[in-house]
Structure formats: C-alpha cells, structure tokens
C-alpha cells in the first residue's frame, strides 16, 4: 500500500446514529484503484459512504482528497460523485437533464461531455425519457453518467447493483468493471455481495458492526482473512474451534497446522476446494466420511459430510455424476493445504459440540 498514491485518504473516521457507532475507519484509495467495502446489512457501509460524501457529519477523524482536507465541507464542495442503490434520479427531469444536473449546479455547460457519457453507458436513446419509464438497469446507467458528468475527484457507489434482478445485475456489473478499471479517480464501492466484491475490487475492506475488520489487497484478504467475521464474509466455512497444542490444532480427529496462532482458534475451510474421491490416491489432509445430505443446485451442489467433522463440500455437477454420490455412502475427503485458514477465536465461544470428543490425531 503506497501512501504516496493515495488520492482518497480516510483517517480515524467516526460517526454515530443513535446507539450505532461507526469508528476508527482508516482507508487509502489511489487513483485508478477500486476499494470494495464488503459487509453485511446494517454494518455501517452506507453510513461510511455518507460520511465521506458529507451527507453526515463526522464526529472524529478526517477525509482528504488529493491532500485537500474536506472533512468539514458541505457535500457540494467536495467534488465527490455518488451513485445510490435506488439510482435516486430526479423524477421530474428527463434522463438527459439528470445527467446535466451537476454541470448546471456548477454553472457549467458541456453538451459533448454529456453526450459522450450517455453514449458510453448506452443510454443516448433514452435521453428524453423520464426516470419512471426506465428499467432498473437503465436508471443505474443514467445515474452513473450523472455522477461522472461534472468531473468528480472521487466516485462512491452505494450498492448500485443490489436492487437489480440477476441478469441485469451481471450485465451492469461488467459495465462497472469496464468503467472502474479505467476511471482514473479513486472509487469506493460498497456491497454485501461477495462475488461482486471479488470481481470489482483492487482493495478489499471488510466492515462489520461499524468497525473495520480488515483491509488490504483483495487477493490477500481473500486468501488470509484475519478473523472469523472476515472469513465468513468471504465464503469460508467454519470447521470448528479448538486449542493450539504444539503448533497443531485438532478438530474432529483431524490435525491442522496452527499457522503461527496460539490459544483458542477457529478453523475455516473453503467448501469449493474440498475434494471427494472413491479411492485414496490423493495427497493432503485425508479422511473418510459419510455423506449426510445432498442439496442439488446450479452450478455447484452442496454435499454435507459427517459425522466428524461436519464439512460441506461444493461439488460441480459433472463431478457429482462421476462420483455417484448418495446419502449414507462412504467417501474419501481431502482438504488441500491452502484451503484451510486458522484465526483467533476472539469470542472464545466454547460451544459444546461433538467436536470436543477427542480422538487420537491422525497426522499426515
């Protein structure tokens, strides 16, 4: 993370709404960088964007754009483009007048730029339509053009895809991907959708209950979640909790490398990395399990295995056919080396589970 290339810098930002508190937010986003803020609903994602944009007062900390302090400024003086979840187009104006609004407010006029942007987002033909007559995807395209027309120095996107249906969402996601990759200004995109986050992010921040849990390069955060919350948000499944002894943690009879952690830890695995086979030929952490439950879905089916430890494997359907999986069948299970992550058990949950039944470790 180069401090020099950070055109949007957020330091110790805090704000509150009733009893909900957002605090200690540190973020750095360079030009041409996309930071995706991932978090469950109610985590404070929108609140964070609103505080950066100036819709909400910060109670502490500061926001800088290219070194310019904007923390106390009114939103109209910050030069931050904002895209809302529901597009928030002005219903009394045509699509084109919506896009022109920022220029009008700045007492500027640049018809070519407006045409160019509307063209770029494929909404030129809709210029004279009112927002009410547009589809969700079209509205969001107009909203993107509107947010960029006045030449903002930062772009904030508040779950712009989550109100759309699946096909439109995927379509607009690739529009966003193209846009963000060549934008040239820092972009912060907020979402609760993991796929969206991985597709769009250069940097990934995970936020929960108003606190920043982890921030860093997207692939690094994805491979090395720092805590249980981040791991769950990023699609890791919990295998169980245990105590580190001699650099190993044993769960359900399986011993895992503690990855330099000590004390009480939680072990997570990636369900799509679990390999199932009929015969024990593969390398890695191997054990034999029984198929408990099968949920067929597209493109991956869920196979719940047991009894110890309870693992869910995500299996491609063609693989599924090959293995002829049936409930109660015995199968060889392999957990590859990089597909397990150990994090500190902050809550020290001590759940009384069958996992605490000690069995002699079967080290490999």
């Amino acid at each position: 993370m180069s401090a020099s290339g950070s055109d949007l810098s957020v330091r110790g930002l805090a704000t509150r709404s009733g009893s909900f508190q957002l605090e200690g937010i540190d973020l750095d986003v360079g030009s041409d960088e996309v930071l995706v803020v991932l978090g469950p609903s109610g985590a404070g994602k929108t609140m964070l964007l609103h505080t950066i944009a100036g819709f909400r007062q910060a109670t502490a900390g500061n926001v800088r754009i290219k070194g310019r302090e904007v923390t106390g400024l009114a939103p109209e003086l910050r030069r931050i483009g904002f895209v809302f979840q529901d597009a928030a187009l002005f219903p009394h104006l045509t699509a084109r007048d919506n896009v022109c609004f920022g220029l009008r407010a700045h007492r500027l006029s640049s018809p070519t730029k407006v045409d160019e942007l509307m063209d770029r987002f494929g909404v030129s033909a809709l210029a004279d339509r009112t927002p009410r007559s547009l589809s969700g995807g079209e509205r969001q395209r107009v909203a993107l053009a509107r947010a960029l027309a006045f030449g903002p120095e930062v772009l904030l996107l508040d779950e712009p895809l989550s109100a759309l249906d699946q096909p439109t969402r995927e379509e607009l996601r690739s529009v966003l991907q193209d846009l963000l990759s060549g934008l040239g200004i820092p972009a912060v995109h907020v979402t609760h959708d993991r796929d969206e986050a991985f597709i769009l992010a250069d940097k990934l921040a995970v936020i929960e209950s108003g606190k920043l849990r982890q921030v860093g390069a997207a692939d690094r955060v994805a491979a090395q979640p720092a805590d249980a919350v981040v791991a769950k948000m990023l699609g890791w499944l919990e295998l169980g909790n245990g105590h580190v002894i001699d650099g190993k943690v044993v769960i359900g009879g399986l011993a895992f490398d503690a990855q330099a952690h000590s004390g009480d830890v939680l072990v997570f695995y990636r369900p799509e990395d679990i390999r199932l086979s009929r015969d024990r030929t593969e390398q890695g952490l191997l054990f034999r399990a029984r198929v408990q439950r099968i949920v067929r879905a597209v493109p991956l089916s869920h196979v719940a295995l047991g009894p110890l430890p309870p693992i869910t494997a995500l299996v491609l359907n063609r693989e599924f056919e090959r293995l002829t999986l049936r409930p109660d069948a015995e199968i060889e299970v392999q957990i590859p080396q990089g597909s397990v992550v150990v994090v500190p058990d902050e809550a020290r949950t001590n759940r009384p589970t069958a996992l605490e039944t000690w069995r002699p470790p079967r080290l490999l």
Partner: protein
Amino acid sequence: MWMLGGLLIAFILLPLVRLAGTSSVTSLTHAAETAAIRDAILLSLQDAAITAGLATLVGVPLAYVLAFRRFRGRSLLQAVVDLPLAVPHTVAGIALLFVFGRTGWIGAPASHLGISFYGSQWGIVAAMLFVSAPFAVNSARVALESIDANLDRAARSLGASPSFAFRHVTLPLAGRGVMTGAVLVYARSISEFGAVVIIAFYPVTAPVEVYNLFLQSGLAQSAAAAVLLLLVSLATFLVLRTLASGWLFAGADRERLR
C-alpha cells in the same frame, strides 16, 4: 360498505341539490345584479385568494422545518400548527379580536400606522388565515416528507447548494402538495363565517351577506344569494383543484415502489 358510503354521499349532495333547485335563472341574475351580494362575493374571492397566497408563503418554510429538521419540541410545534382545527371559529374570532382589535397587542401598534384590522379587509384575511393555515402547512409538509431523502443528497453531491437543491429538486417535487394546500386554504377561507363575522362584520363577505339576508328577509330571499355563492365557490374550487392535481405537475408523479 357501498351502502354506508352512498348514504354519506347522499347526505352531502342532497341539501346542495335541493338548494340549487330552489332558484331560477332570473332569481340568480337578480341576485348577481344586486350590488351588495356581488360585492360580497367578489370580496370573498379576493380575500380567500390573498389568504391562500399568504398561507403558502409562510406555510411552506414552516412545513420544511417540520418535515426535515429534527429538534426538541417538534411534535409540540406540529400540535400548535393543528390547533386552529380544534378551536371553534367564533372562539378564534374573539381570540383574534384581543390581539388584532384596536387595543390589541398587534392591533394597537398597527392602528398607529393607519392599519385597522377591526372591520377591514385585513381583519378578514387574519381570520381566514388563522382557521385555514394548518391546511397549507400540513399539505406541504406531507408532500415534502414523501420526497426521497436521497434526491436531496444526490443534488448536493452534484454540486448543488442547499438553495439550488431546494429550488430545482425539492420544490418542483413538492409543488403539487403545496398547490393542493393553497387550494384547501382557499376553499376553507371562502367558506369561513364564524371568525370573520366577529373580527370583521364589515366589509361584508359573502357568507356574512347570506346570513344577513337570511335574518332580514328569510329563507327564500337568502337562497338565491346562497346558490350564487355556492356556484362561484364550487367553480373556482374545481378549477384550482384540477390545476393543482392534474397536468400542471405531471413531472411530479411519484415513482411507484417496486
């Protein structure tokens, strides 16, 4: 449900239809040619229009505060706005007289400036404003509250100052509600009798004139003036109502929720 609803509609329409049936074209033209009746109706129209304009002018800022600002005593303020709805209008007239009368808190200094509320058009407007102001404030407030807060945020992020955002986004979107409020104020004002008759018996407004005719000449004589007033106020009300709710603010159509 239909039957009870129908009863109410009949209850509203029956007296009006019966009243309209009592008069002939000749009696109406005769009433319209009577200077006292004509002047009274014109005065009512004029003062109701002034009141509607005034109520909107001072009502919208208050509606804005009630809709968007969160502060202690906000619900108390809202209750004060609604108060005139609960005060009997003759009581309102007497209360107004204490303030706007020749020796009242406002009436006394005003009379030094040569403005008299008692027995003048200003008194009529004051009485009309008192009883009808809640309609202007509430109608505008509801319209403002129904505007998506993100629209104002969007405008501000695009570089609009608060006043630019108000003029180009909030007000156009609330326009229909504001107009509806003005029409309601107008309708309420033109029909006002109780408060007006106490603070300003003269100059005579149309409802007061109808009452006078009723006292002096009886039911038959007052009917013609009453029908005339009914027609004039209904006609203006319907025209204004159509303007306020129809094509004039077509752009303000609320987006349907998904």
